[in-house]
């Protein structure tokens, strides 16, 4: 089975029923997407398939036909994605475990809506749980990221 992840091709030998998350983490070595619940209830595993946010813990790898993007594919130290930059500036993360999923949901939101309202943020981010309660900073960072993106930074 061939997967395209963060612009790279990987040949893997996996049960097609294996969730994409475990193929990414155990077979390919992409540990950015996190395991939180296994039932698409917390969003920690969020990645993009062809630009759409999906919960990789509940998508069988056999059905993951498309370009997959993880947190490791959107930016890196030195050339951060505007959403990552905003997260850094707002000092969003506490334990940090849910943040890869939060950021991937936020990136997808801003690709869809350049200047999201609070209601847009509530709708797009409601599936991403944070037990540290970083929500006020997530909201602020999404607004800051929207501004950074619009300014082309």
């Amino acid at each position, binding site marked *: 089975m061939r997967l395209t992840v963060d612009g790279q091709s990987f040949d893997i030998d996996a049960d097609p029923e294996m969730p994409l998350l475990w193929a990414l983490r155990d077979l390919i070595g992409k*540990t950015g997407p996190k*395991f939180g619940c296994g039932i698409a209830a917390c969003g920690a595993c969020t990645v993009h398939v062809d630009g759409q946010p999906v919960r990789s813990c509940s998508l069988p790898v056999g059905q993951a036909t498309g370009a997959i993007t993880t947190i490791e594919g959107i930016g890196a130290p030195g050339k951060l994605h505007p959403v990552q930059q905003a*997260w850094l500036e707002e000092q969003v*993360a*506490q334990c940090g475990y849910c943040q890869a999923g939060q950021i991937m949901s936020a990136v997808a939101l801003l690709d869809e809506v350049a200047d999201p309202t609070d209601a847009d943020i509530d709708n797009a*981010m409601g599936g991403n749980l944070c037990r*540290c*309660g970083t929500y006020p900073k997530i*909201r602020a960072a999404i607004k800051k990221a929207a501004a950074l993106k619009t300014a082309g930074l």
Partner: protein
Amino acid sequence: MASVGKIARRTFLIGAAAIAGGVAVGYYYYRKPFANPLEGDLAAGEATFNPYVKIGADNTITIVAPRAEMGQGISTTLAVMVAEELDVGLDQVKVEHGPASYAYYNAAILEEGGPFAFFDESRTAEAVRAGLGVVGKFLALQGTGGSASTRDGFNKMRQAGAAARQMLIAAAAQKLGIDAADLETANGSILHKASGKSLTYGEVAANAAAMPPPAEVRLKDKADWKLLGKPQKRIDMLAKVTGAPIFGIDVRLPDMLYGTVKMSPRFWSRPVGADLAKAEKMPGVIKIVPLETNYGHGFGIIAENTWAAFKAAEAIETQWAEPEYPPDSAAIAGVLKQALGAEGSAMRDNGDVAKAFADAPREKIIEADYAVPYLAHATMEPMNATARLKDGVLDIWCGNQAPTLVRQLCANVLGMEQDRVTVHTTFMGGGFGRRVEMDYALCAALMAKAAEGRPVKVTWTREEDMRHDAYRPAAVGKFRARLGDDGLPVAVDMTIASPSVIAGTLRRLFPSISPLGPDKTIVDGAYDQPYTIPNYRVSAIAAPVTIPVGSWRSVGSSINGFFHEGFLDEIAVAGKTDPVELRKTLMAAYPAAVAVVEKVAAMAKWSEALPAGKAKGMAFSLSFGSWVGEIVQVADTPAGIRIEKVWIAADVGTALDPGIIEAQLISAAIYGLSAAMGQEITFADGMVEQSNFHDFDAMRIFQCPAFEVAILENFHKMGGVGEIGTPPAAPALANAIFALTGKRIRTLPLSKAVAFA
């Protein structure tokens, strides 16, 4: 408050825990300094000054911050303590957790373990605090908890930085032939202004580290702080926004296997007639091994990948023995209710409560029963650990709040010497008290024994995690008050029954020790509040239910904040006093408490009327040495009650990083509100009924209120930060709902009585 005589008669459980630890590490004599654990493991050209500072010849400066980073920002604040005195910027240093070592014992974690309120500064209370600090060293527990890390580190980490700086200056003085008094330091260099000569720390590090440590270490005055007291950029932020592999679950080793566990869903029960054949034959499964630890019984599944292990765990067919405890929530509630009828241990007993109620007119008495449920920690990162047993050496990688205990218990379970065990402590995806426990590390260690030298990463499913916690115990409380003619309470009698956290913890960690005496965590947050009431009794009763219970963010205060402050609100209503004014009157002897209540009331414009359909509630709690007032505003909406805004004022004595403190206060309030709104762990047939976030959820972003926070520094002793926002959150919300609806809800979660938007 208790006298020394009373303490001696009763003993108290934290002492039992300390003795248990002392048995294990008793050969560490109190006054003997610990060896520097960094000495054996230095890179080429690297020198170490003390357990907290390493400097390389290339001027790479490494600070060891030996407390668990679970989101509370402690690795940043501890590093700042050293950096401040070492005169280096935070961006110039590398920060490491460092090895498991008794040198990193936490003295402050036990300091408040005695039966004294934080504000009790009597000679007895201070003597016990000092005594327990000694116990802390004797026990040598490298632990993160009790909101104690900054208080424990504040002097020793600053001293570590200052001592290293003085040694570097002395070495530079020698090398340059200049008097040390004429040298200055800045940004990792030593300068001689007059001649313009300078040396980096790295250039003199080797010589400096060989010098004797200074006999006298001088610390900066607070006024001269450049980093402390100001918000810093967290050292872990970049890794956390780029998905870097920093958590236990991200560990990857050559030749690594994967695994999971299937533990008995009935605590302590053994499997009866297990059929492993089907699971063993599944693709990718390597081996299934029985697991037996002080936490219970079950199976470990070793496989080629985590998914294969999860599938095999589902396929194991087993019966489990009957539970040793009441099997369902109704039966457990019955035991708690019955316990409440017993005579409790009075941890506070002012005046003569019995007499005050004996002649009270019926219309002056108010009574109420309160209850809270068991709760899971539900950290975002499920329990996991990676272990490798090769050539008689165990390496274990995991996020944990007590590395020396991980080392000790893993060595015990494998029958090894502790010096053959190396603990690699990672960042943790949430702790909240869950990662004080050792179960996930012990399971991984046992599974490594069956893996023929290969490392095994053992990841629990969310369902295993939810159903095998050391839960926040359920608790019930019986409350009565006698009001005076002025509406103020003349007498208050509070009795609280709950399974004992300390007894439960001892059974798991030190099963050979029997718990003695009452457990003050049952009444923490109720017996130790800064209110003066002439007749004031708070009694604890340990209820005999052996479902595992442990430390859950703010421990006893998470229960008693709700009980005490809910009942105080009832007293205010019955006595027709304003809840803020009532508290200010009762806490008049404690100006720090009055100041936070006044501050939070001013922030929230408490005295101004709200439009119809909106209401506010307030609560106060002193916990972990910090004084916190919270006000919650709720609104009635067609979809249910919406929490609109929360104001928090907290006096932490000395605020070392206001940015991190504000984040922690909001975090802890959301943690408490999440539980109050909808969380409960219930039991049927001896098993936990909840399994995942669909039936044990937490606040979501669309429910999150706006926050406004004020940090005060009035009190003369430093308090903790990580847990203090939780205790007042639930009662402030419940009191706001009463103000909105007239419905007094005395049982959590509130969602059983009202709907939330």
